Structures are given as C-alpha cells and as structure tokens.
C-alpha cells in the first residue's frame, strides 16, 4: 500500500520535475556556464567574470538597466493608479451582467497577440495615425503630430499591456472585502479618501503587491512594446540582451546580462516587499 502510494506520488511528480529540470534548471545552468566564459581568441575561452564586470564598468549598460528599471517602476505605479479605480468599480460598484461585461472588456485585448495590440497603438499614435488626424480635424493642431517613438508612447504601451495583470489580483482581493466593512468605514465618519486609505488599500495590499510584482516583471522583461513604440528612443535592457545574442553573436555577454537582469530584478522586488512589509508567501498564497 505504502509502496503504491509512493509510486503514485513519483509518477505525479515526474512531469513537473522533468519540466523543471529540462526546461528551467538545465538551460539556466548552461546559460550560467556561458556567462562565465571569456572569449580570448577565436574558439578559445577562459573562465571568469569579465562579462559581469563589463556590465558594471561600461556606463551604457548600467544606465540602460537603471532606465529600464525606473521606467518599469513608473509603469507599475501608473498601472496601479489607473487599475485601482477600475478594479474597485468592477469589484464593488458594478453588479451582475455589467460586472462580467467590464471584466470581459479588460480581457478582450488579450485575445490578440501582443504584437497586434502594439500595432494597434502604432496606428493610433503615428504621425499619419488616427489621433493625429482627429486633432487636426477638430482644429486643435495645424499640422500632423508625431506621438510615437518617445517615452510617453512606450509608457502608454506598457501600461496597456500590463493592465489585466493588475486588474485581476486587485478585483480578486477587493471582492473579498466585505461591503459592510466599507459601509462601516463611512458610517463611523470616514469619507471616500479616508475609507480608501485606511480600509480599502490595507485590505487590498496583498493584491496590490502581487499585481505590482507581476506588472514590474512583465514590463522589465518586455521586448516588443518598448522596441516598437519607443522607436529610436526605446533603449530597453531586454533589447540589449537580444542584440548581444542575435546581432553581436556575443552569447557570453548576453547570458551575463540575462543573469544580471534576473538577479537585479529579484533584488528590486525583494526591496519592495521589504518596504511594504509584505512577504512573497502572503501575496502569492
């Protein structure tokens, strides 16, 4: 009996272990080994941390990473600011069919690929695009306006792409907040601001934190949106990794960058968890 149970357990666990080992652990080990290779000459390599050192000695890479991280933080904060009222409305104010309809509306853009969504924004924002023409038609501007290829366009794209990943955890946590707790907040003299600050936000903190982690990591690891909407000004860290691997054939540096991205982004998340007094178990559990 015990042996059978053990066998069943092993069989159940095998796919997960295989998946973890073959697709996550082994590639990462391989990647790490590549990252500590230094190219000395053609087909000659030495082991060392020069690739990692490059990141810290070449200001360009450090600056790009800082910029990527800061922009991702900004995108996360803005997503939160936009998604919070939306989620609150969906979870607490909308009822019945309206509620599901609104939730669906948040979901619909994700039925098409990220590429198509980003193209949609390009059509809207480009110089000969819909917004530019609309503004000219209304008479607000005289000539075409270029709204693409700048940080704002990139930010818009990032927020749009991340929206759902913030709305879902927020709606879930807000739905678990008893309506009467909010009413009690008002009943005892609170107004919209104090109730939000003292009751709604503290309750939603796990959702906020998990949403923020997901959005931050997605933004940091995004490649398409910054490249396409940011154009000549994009400069995103993932773009550097891509170009090291594909364009420059410099897998060694690319792998090192990959690990640095993993390490530094985990560090940022850890700091953020520390600052908000949350733990990963609390937010993800």
């Amino acid at each position, binding site marked *: 009996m015990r042996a059978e149970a053990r066998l069943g357990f092993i069989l159940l666990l095998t796919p997960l272990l295989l998946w973890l080992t073959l697709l996550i652990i082994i590639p990462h080990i391989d990647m790490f080994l590549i990252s500590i290779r230094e190219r000395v000459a053609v087909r000659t390599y030495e082991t060392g941390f020069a690739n990692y050192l490059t990141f810290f000695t070449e200001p360009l890479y450090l600056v790009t990473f800082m910029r990527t991280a800061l922009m991702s933080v900004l995108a996360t904060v803005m997503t939160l600011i936009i998604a919070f009222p939306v989620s609150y409305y969906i979870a607490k104010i909308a009822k019945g069919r309206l509620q599901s309809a609104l939730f669906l509306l948040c979901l619909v853009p994700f039925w098409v690929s990220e590429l198509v969504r980003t193209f949609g924004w390009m059509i809207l924002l480009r110089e000969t695009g819909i917004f530019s023409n609309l503004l000219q038609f209304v008479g607000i501007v005289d000539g075409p306006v270029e709204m693409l290829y700048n940080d704002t366009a990139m930010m818009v794209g990032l927020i749009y792409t991340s929206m759902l990943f913030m709305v879902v955890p927020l709606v879930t946590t807000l739905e678990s907040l008893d309506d009467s707790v909010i009413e*009690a*907040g*008002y*009943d005892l003299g609170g107004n919209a601001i104090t109730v939000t600050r*003292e*009751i709604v936000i503290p309750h939603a903190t796990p959702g906020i934190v998990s949403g923020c982690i997901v959005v931050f990591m997605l933004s940091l690891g995004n490649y398409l949106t910054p490249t396409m909407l940011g154009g000549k000004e994009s400069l995103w860290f993932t773009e550097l990794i891509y170009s090291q691997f594909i364009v420059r054939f410099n897998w060694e540096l690319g792998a090192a960058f990959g690990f640095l991205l993993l390490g530094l982004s985990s560090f940022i998340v850890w700091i953020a968890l520390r600052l908000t007094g949350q733990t990963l178990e609390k937010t993800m559990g």
Partner: protein
Amino acid sequence: MTPDLECVKLTKTFDTIKAVDDVSFQVPAGSFFSILGPSGCGKTTIMRMVAGFLDPTSGDIQIKGKSVLDIAPNKRPVNMVFQHLALFPMMNIGDNIGYGLRRAGASKAEIATKVGEVLERIGLPGIAERKVDQLSGGQKQRIAIARCMVLEPDVLLLDEPLGALDLKLREHMKIELKSLQSAFDTTFVYITHDQSEALVMSDQVAVMNEGRFEQLGTARELYYDPKTPFVAGFVGDSNRWSGTVDASSGNEVRIKTVSGVSLTGSAQGRPLAKGDRAQVFVRPEAIRVALKADGISAFENRIVGTVSSLLFNGANSRVLVRDDASGGEIDVALPQSGEFASLTKGAPLHIGWNAGQATCFAGGTE
C-alpha cells in the same frame, strides 16, 4: 420630549416592489426599540435608510427632531453595528475603536484615553493592541458596539448582530446587550428575525411584515394581545385552527373548526358575526394539561387526546397531543413539575384552556 428617532410615512420602492410601505414610528430617547420580522420584510431597508445608505422614496427621517435626509451617512449622528460586525481586520482593536475618533479629528492623546475608557466599560480593558482575529465572538460583539459608542451617537442601529453567534453565547449576549444599552444610556434600534431577542431586550417592538408595521407595542402586548393573525403567529408559538363562527355573544365567540371541533375564543373587540370565516390562535403554554378530566373542568375548551410525541427539551419540553375527536395535533407545553414525568407516548391526556387565551381573528384559509 422629542423622540431620538422619528420616521414619518417612510416609503422605499425598488423598481416596482414596495420594500417599505408608509411606515411611521417614534423611538423615545434612551429606549431599546426593535423591529422584528421575517427576512425580506423590509426591516433592513428601514435601518439602511436611517443610517443613510439608502434614500427613502418618500417620507422623512428625523433625529432629535431634525430631518437627516440631506446628511450623508458619515455625518449622521447615527452609528451602526453590522450583521457580521464589520470590524476592520486590518487594524488592531484600539485602532478599530479609535477609527471614528480619528475621523472626527480628535487628538492622539484624547483617542487613547477614550479608547481606554470604552474598553473599560465593556469589560475588556487592555486589549487595544490585540488583533481582531484573536478575539472570541462575544468579545468582537462588544468591540463592535464600543466602536460606535465611543462616538456617542444619538441612535445606535444594530442589524441582527447576534446572528453569527452560537446559541449559548447568543442567550448570554442578549442580556449583555441590554445592560450595555442601559450603561451607555443610548437609544438602540435593533432589527432581528429572532423573536426571543426582540422580546427579551426591547422596550418596544415593531412587528413588520411585507413592508408594513403589523403592530407596535411592548413585548407583553405583542404576546398577550396580538392585533393581527400575523403577529399572533409570528410572536411566540401558537396552535392555529380555522373555521366558521357558530355563535357570538359580546367578546366570546364559538367557532366550528374545519375538522369539526367546536372552540370558544375571545374576539377582543373585533367584529365577528355568525357565519364569518375565522381563525383561532392558542399558545402551547396557555394550555393546561391534566391526567384526569376533572383537572380541566374549569376551562371552556376541553379536549381529550392521546400523546403522539414527547419532545423533551428541559424547561421548554412539549408534548404533541392528538385530538381523539378530530385527529388534529395540538402543541402543548409540558410543565416540569414532576407530575407528568412518567408520561409516555400513547397515554391518554386531557387538555383545556380558557376562552380568553384563544385569540380569534376574522378571515383565514382552509
């Protein structure tokens, strides 16, 4: 003296449904007022209108003589204890109680003093630092009340706050609530579907059904002198017969029930003429039980029957007696004086009651 709370012709309509239909009442200062009714009768709607979470379709709500219709819930001198208490789980006890004071802009020192005082008064001193989930059900209950009382509201609304408690605790809390009310000397408006909660605690009880007040009175009045069949049936337990008026003389009515039993009851001023449809309510505890026929010879209504079930429940023990003549079952309270301790199922039993204990109403169905 101006009542603490007065509702005037209060009406609330949802779409086409009249949840509250032309309800008027006054709650005198310092009294414990209950609204008793089955779920869906509109009592919660009244409470939410008083608290300010709903606007009445028509009518007025006055607190200490002033209309509060234009005052937002957070500014009304009314506080509410919610059904599931709605303590703030993200705050500790002290912050929960201090929440309203913080909103009112009280200083930190003042808040700390007042929170300490109120905790003292509810008999839970020194627990300000505890978490909400570290408290027992009864303690939470007291905190929920303290959280409101610290604001010294004119009226405290309580929305079935005992519903979530287990029976034993509920019994205990009934007494405790009543003593808290007199300790704080504040007007309590309490809504419940549990008649015993309403009867035990209240100075006045309004029985509500389908958006209207059926009867408003003291617990005693409702119990002994129900004005409508609904009240008679809802407050306390009752045996109910329906039939036709056979004879009527003054207050006394003879009714022939559908099952063929002839009963004498009291019309209590209600016009009941021969031939009218009528129903008779008799409380189980108003029925006298005797082993021999002469034990009940003094009563107008006498029935000989057989014990069909014994429902032993200590002081609240009941016996179901099957009427030998009609076959109908009658619910009778069984005195625990020892006389009937040996009663068994199938034993013959004589039961009887006074015409005055049998309340008759016009109408009623088969």
